[in-house]
């Protein structure tokens, strides 16, 4: 009997944190512009000490305007989507659930396309509209998914599927009937795009990330119990309805956050929780933090590959997440002694 201890949690998180750090370093180093590690370090150090004018403008641009924002966004998106995916898998009692199954990304896409049609040249508009679309969908699906005042898992899933179909149809209709000039950006947004940083300072976004992941984390013991059965969890003293609401809102907001700033990057929310489960077990007290870190690592590495593998062409991040994640997944699956 080896129950989870705080020490083990801290050790695993530290190990994953170190891996994330390494991924960040590698990602900072690689790219189309030739810059060496000492030059990068010099740029970082000078900035830290406020010696802005000692940094060559090109270095500044490459490190602070191009690479670091992308990496930061990648961490944000990866952590959000993986945690949301883990949360939804518990909430919907479905190992195949991903963050988009309840329609959040479809609502965001609809918001994006409407903003492109109305105000295509306004910077940052697409992200606000996407977040608004996501929020609207979250509320609508929630109210559709209730039964007798409680969140009913099966009904929620159905409501989500209906939302996805309906919203996709509306999007397709709009894309075909509206004049097609502004929708070029849409294709990138749909594939996932880490190159356009959001208009808000990333502090706020990280705050939202911490709040979202933290909220789900507080329910992790409850989720462990709920996964053995809702009735059983109730009998053990879990306030199941409250937990479902918290997880639903937090996971949906995390998804909406990620999708609004970078489009719908796929596979992260589905693969990473399973990967972490295979490595560290199904205890959600460990799964939530490891999913967040693992997702961040995956997206940072995938983005690195996306922009360097066939440079100068940039591949869509969503394709790379699958290419990077799937082999690891298959390897772990075969290795598992069950």
């Amino acid at each position: 009997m080896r129950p989870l201890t705080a020490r083990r949690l801290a050790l695993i998180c530290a190990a994953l944190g170190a891996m994330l750090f390494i991924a960040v370093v590698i990602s900072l180093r690689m790219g189309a512009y030739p810059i060496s590690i000492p030059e990068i370090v010099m740029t970082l150090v000078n900035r830290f000490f406020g010696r802005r004018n000692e940094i060559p403008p090109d270095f500044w641009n490459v490190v602070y305007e191009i690479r670091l924002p992308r990496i930061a966004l990648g961490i944000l998106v990866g952590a959000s989507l993986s945690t949301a995916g883990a949360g939804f898998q518990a909430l919907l009692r479905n190992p195949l659930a991903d963050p988009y199954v309840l329609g959040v990304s479809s609502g965001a896409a609809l918001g994006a396309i409407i903003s492109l049609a109305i105000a295509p040249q306004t910077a940052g508009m697409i992200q606000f509209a996407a977040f608004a679309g996501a929020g609207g969908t979250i509320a609508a699906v929630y109210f559709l998914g209730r039964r007798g005042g409680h969140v009913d898992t099966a009904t929620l899933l159905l409501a989500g599927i209906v939302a996805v179909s309906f919203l996709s149809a509306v999007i397709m209709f709009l894309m075909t009937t509206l004049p097609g000039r502004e929708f070029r950006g849409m294709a990138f947004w749909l594939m996932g795009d880490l190159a356009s940083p959001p208009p808000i300072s990333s502090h706020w976004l990280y705050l939202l990330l911490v709040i979202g992941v933290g909220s789900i984390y507080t329910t992790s013991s409850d989720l462990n119990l709920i996964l053995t059965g809702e009735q059983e969890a109730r009998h053990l003293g879990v306030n199941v309805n409250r937990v479902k609401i918290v997880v639903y809102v937090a996971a949906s907001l995390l998804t909406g956050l990620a999708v609004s700033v970078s489009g719908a990057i796929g596979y992260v929310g589905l693969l990473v929780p399973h990967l972490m489960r295979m490595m560290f077990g199904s205890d959600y007290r460990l799964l939530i933090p490891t999913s967040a870190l693992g997702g961040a690592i995956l997206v940072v590495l995938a983005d690195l590959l996306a922009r360097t593998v066939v440079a100068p062409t940039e591949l869509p991040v969503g394709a790379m997440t699958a290419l990077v994640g799937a082999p690891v997944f298959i390897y772990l699956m075969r290795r598992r002694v069950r």
Partner: protein
Amino acid sequence: MLETQKLKRANSNNAAMIAFAGALLLLATAVRASADVEPGGQSNARTPRYRIVTDDVGREVKMPIEVNRIVTLAPNLTEIVYALGLADKLAGDTNECDSPPAAKSKPHVGEPQNPNLEAIIALHPDLVLATTAINRVETADALGRLGIAVYTSDGEAETVLGILDSIARMADLMLAQAKGADLVAQMRRRLDELHKRLEDRPMVHVLFVVWLDPLTTIGQKTFIADALRWAGTESVVLSKQTWPQISMEEVIRLEPDYIVFAGTHGESKATELTDLRSRPVWRDLDAVQVGHVVNLNQEVIRPSPGLVDAIEQLARQVHPEAFARRSENRGPSSEIPAEEPIRCAR
């Protein structure tokens, strides 16, 4: 004793949570991308004088007066740069810039829709040219944030003459006014000549096919529709959209005199007349049966100098009578592309 043990566990649990949250926050601070700091300037050794111009989409561009390194983000812009004789100032273009062929050997910055920003920075451009026809707003924004001068031209001109104006403006931009005026005048002259030749010719109705599957054509408010008019033809499809998709039923109903394809979208084989003749429904169209199928170079769908060539090429095939008498006056000044038009075997 149990109480203190539990307390210790509770404390270490708290510690783990705080450590985790702290690590995230630390990371966030460390990667803080400052949007509030002024972006760096050019990295050229000399300090060029600047001017501020407004581009076609209303963006104020601060660019050096002397432009020595240009990067283009679209094939038509590359063509224009070459036509203005500025080829040696072209520092880089996209993967898709294939006309003229020399453009293919220039350093590439990626695709027009998603160029690699770092590659652009590495080329140290004085000016980056973009167009609304194919480039994204996000790209121009990002370049602006990096302190790189990017001029976006309006690639969605509705008339051919509008394109000429755009070329003239770009020539001004790059201090090639003389060459620009010359180029524009030449293009204008050719168009006017063509107009005179075709004055008495009846309008030929064509279906301009952008894509076969799904069947996509062009709308009325595009420069392609206008180009067709200059060639003495008219698109049979009346639509306000830019790239309307139509059904074969519409094509049958509209009975175009000619079917016009625009070059190599990977469907060059399909545009062979013989292939069309083997397709159901298509083969029963009058135009196909009589062999009135034209395959132009891709330049038609680009707002560039090659457009005039394409217009001429189309006019020749559709109104051969207007050219028959003057065939001996063909000179090197008219640059008809080498590809042979497809003629039917009657």
